[in-house]
């Protein structure tokens, strides 16, 4: 979906479709591809667990797969692809701050004065 497909209210009948048949077909094809990809990636994560590849590797690989799924979700299902800069800047800022919250508090967890923490 794209906002560019939105018709001008002054010039277009508001009950006329705001997607062409071609655009609609493209959307559906995309959605099915993403649906399949997300399912396959879920199964891959599941396989890491099922075949017990070792916790260290499993954590790294599973989180990578989850990140790939999140990327697909954001880019295609949530339509960030083709979206203008406003949203992207907001989201990048949010991602930075959430990462800072988690990583810096994690760093504080490890970096303590000996004997002051259990």
């Amino acid at each position: 979906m794209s906002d560019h497909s939105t018709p001008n209210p002054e010039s277009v009948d508001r009950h006329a479709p705001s997607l062409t048949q071609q655009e609609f077909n493209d959307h559906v094809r995309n959605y099915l591809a993403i649906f399949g990809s997300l399912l396959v990636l879920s199964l891959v994560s599941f396989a890491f667990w099922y075949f017990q590849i070792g916790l260290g590797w499993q954590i790294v690989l599973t989180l990578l797969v989850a990140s790939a799924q999140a990327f697909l979700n954001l880019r295609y299902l949530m339509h960030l692809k083709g979206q203008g800069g406003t949203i992207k800047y907001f989201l990048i800022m949010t991602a930075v701050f959430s990462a800072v919250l988690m990583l810096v508090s994690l760093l504080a967890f490890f970096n303590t004065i000996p004997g002051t923490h259990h």
Partner: protein
Amino acid sequence: MDASTTLAHDSHSHNPGTHAHPHQSWLRQYVFSIDHKVVGMQYLVTALVFLLIGFSFMLLMRWQLAYPGQSLNWERFKGNISISVSNGVGSVTSVFTGREFKPQPFPAAAPYDPAKPEPTLLGKLFGKASMPGGVMAPDFYNSLGAMHGTIMVFLAIVPLLTGAFGNYVMPLQVGAPDMCFPKLNMMSYWTYFVGGVVMLSSFFVPGGAAKSGWTSYPPLSVVSDQLPNWPSILSGQSVWILGMVFLITSSLLGSVNIICTITQLRARGLKWMRLPFFVWSQFVTAFLLLLAFPPLESAAIMQLMDRVAGTSFFMPSGLVVGGNIVHVSGGGTPLLWQHLFWFLAHPEVYVLILPGLGIVCEVIANNTRKPIWGYKSLVFATFFLGFVSFLVWAHHMYLTGMGTVVSSFFQATTIIISVPSVIILTALVISLWGGSIRFTVPMLFATAFLPMFGIGGLTGIPLAFSATDLYLHDTYYVIGHFHYVVAPGTIFAIFAGIYFWYPKATGRMMSPFLGKLHFWPTFILMNCIFMPMFLQGMGGMHRRWYDGGQSWELAKNIVHWNEFIGVAAFLLFLAQIPFIINFFGSLKWGAKATDNPWESTTLEWSTPTPPGHGNFLHEPIVDKGPYEYSVPGMTRDYAMQDINDGKTDAGPPPHDMEIPYTVHARPDTGLYNAKLGIWLFLASEVMLFAGVFSAYVFLRLGADVWPRGYLNTWMGLFNTTVLISSSITMLMSWASLKMRNFQSSQRWLLATILLGVLFLGVKAKEYSDKFHHYGAFIKQESYSKYKNVLEAEGARVTYHPETKLYEVTGHLEKSTAEEIVLLPDLKRGVPTEAKEVDIALADVERWGAFYPKYSSFFAIYFTLTGLHVLHLIGGIVVLAYFYFFGSRIYRQNPEHQANRLEVCGLFWHFVDLVWIFLFPVLYLL
């Protein structure tokens, strides 16, 4: 000469009645109003009342500090006030009476007879336990301290700055007819109001209001106010948390609205760099609220879980309270709360400052009659300040045993953040240079703000360094520093703003005489109150001493300042009377204000006075910057931003008074309003879940053993498939509507709802399974009795080295007073059938079902999935609404309905996105 008469010029008389909101009941127009100006006024009046309440709490505390143990009743005032000290630390002499304080046993109140009627008003109001015989009880003192901070920050100052000024002034300054989402705006106010009522009601529950300070540090905040025969959820601390959830929700709604309004509803020609600085300050502040508050909300939820559901997010193992070990699963860390709290609370400091700076900037530009010096520097410094404010939070935590790497990081960022602060303050000070300064009442407050804020800022520098902070931490130095920023700092800015925009809002000028009578004593007394605190703090006086330091040898040479501060605080209270008279009296007796009484430039002065519904009589078009004062070659010393130069009845009328871009995208942002709104909301949701995920990481790293295999992974995988499928059906519903195929859209929508319900059904089954699954922690010394039989069966046994306990899980077959019979879970891959195992309760440290309180793992599992489920339920409710009632909107405007589905879809995909991380983190890793 009276500013109101000297400054008034061209009068465009308008009858606001003709411009008022048509055909609305009084209730809709003034109580449940969606007009931003009414909402702003509601915020103003409510927050001023809370300001007074919070101030009164402080007065009570100062009484206790100045005269500890003395009864607070009218009899006391008839005689001489005397000081009681708690025990012998030497004598101290009153600075007022010259009386020498004699040591005597503490408390020094007259004998208290509970059977006698309560003699004091406060005792009657707050209960005998709070003020027995008029003497403040220690618990009540703690409650007042906690609630003073909470009320002042969350119920008074922030709502005044963002709720009142943000609502009233900002839309006018950007040339908007209203806020972007007026109904959300109304909801924001009423959520805030309910939050305030909930907060105050906590004084009247058994045990009284929260006592753990405005910071609510655990474990104290978790174990306090837990009364027998009274539900924990209704105890003071829990009510504080509930109140905070309301206030945070209100802030989030408000900040989404502010950002959207500035981004989407700016008038034609109002480019970003033509925005008044006040608008910039609101913009950055809204971001701070939007992204910093959610982690505190997640922390509040977890603290509520600790208090009510018995979890241990913030409760370490082996905690001893009152000589007894607290029986909780443990494994949590109080420092997690501090991280999540200060992640909000430091940006919150800038929330308290930035709008104040914005107000001061407007007033200074107007009253110096020259452009603000370094406008762009101000804007970029504000952005930088907002950004870095997220990176400094742990400088409040140097005392927690933080290592050198982390403390160096936070020391560096804290010093860095002083750079933009100094840029802003310097720009404002330089703006005074060469100006034709008019010392109107707003200008008095604005100029006084500058040195006060400067003192507050400069005294913060020693606190940035861990070496000095370790000494000054938790002393009155910190109180003095913080209050210089917020009290004579921000509150002066608020007063400046009220005096400045009062004529626009009411059509009347406030009395300059009463204003000056308000300003001068307030200015002097504020300094009398807060300056001695630096002396006390550097002398080592702790901020939470109930007796004000009377019982401490180290405080004997500084304790007398308590009385001085107390008297100054009481006089400060009296000094506010002229303001109260002025505020209400001017409504009736104030001189009539013109449309632009201060001869100002920004768009709010291009509206009728007071502005009616829709604000502008013609469409505002901007062709210049916000501070065009004393431009050479002009006939007068200012040029208004509006192309019509403030002639409110000039120019063509606006197209309509509707809010633009509700359906179609604004060209420069490419977004319609709701789409930007939902993305901002989702950004705050990311931060909410980031808070809980941080807890997950802390708990997992802090646990001696992290359990795996307790959840049904197949069920989790099935639910993942269900949720991914529902995302696709949601999109199909939207795409069908874009094709104007309503029936098809409805079918896909129904499928989405059903898939959501299926997910919930599976989740309910999972929860039920957990509630019927048990575990027992066998003591190390008793384990040998069971070792052989458990090993022979292949039972899954987990040893916890920290607590020296063996954990056996399984289905509970029977339980008696002496033993439990478990059908143990087997190790993965063990092919045999399990046999029952009898375990004597005498050998067991604790046992129970897999409720949240069972272990850290189940605490985080139920909290994360519970939050996710709540989101899903919310999504289903909204989708069901569209399914049943969407046809009406579709008939009116199908694109609008498609937009609504798209917005809901974005939320739905986000819920899916969260699950994409929850599934591996909880089920697989």
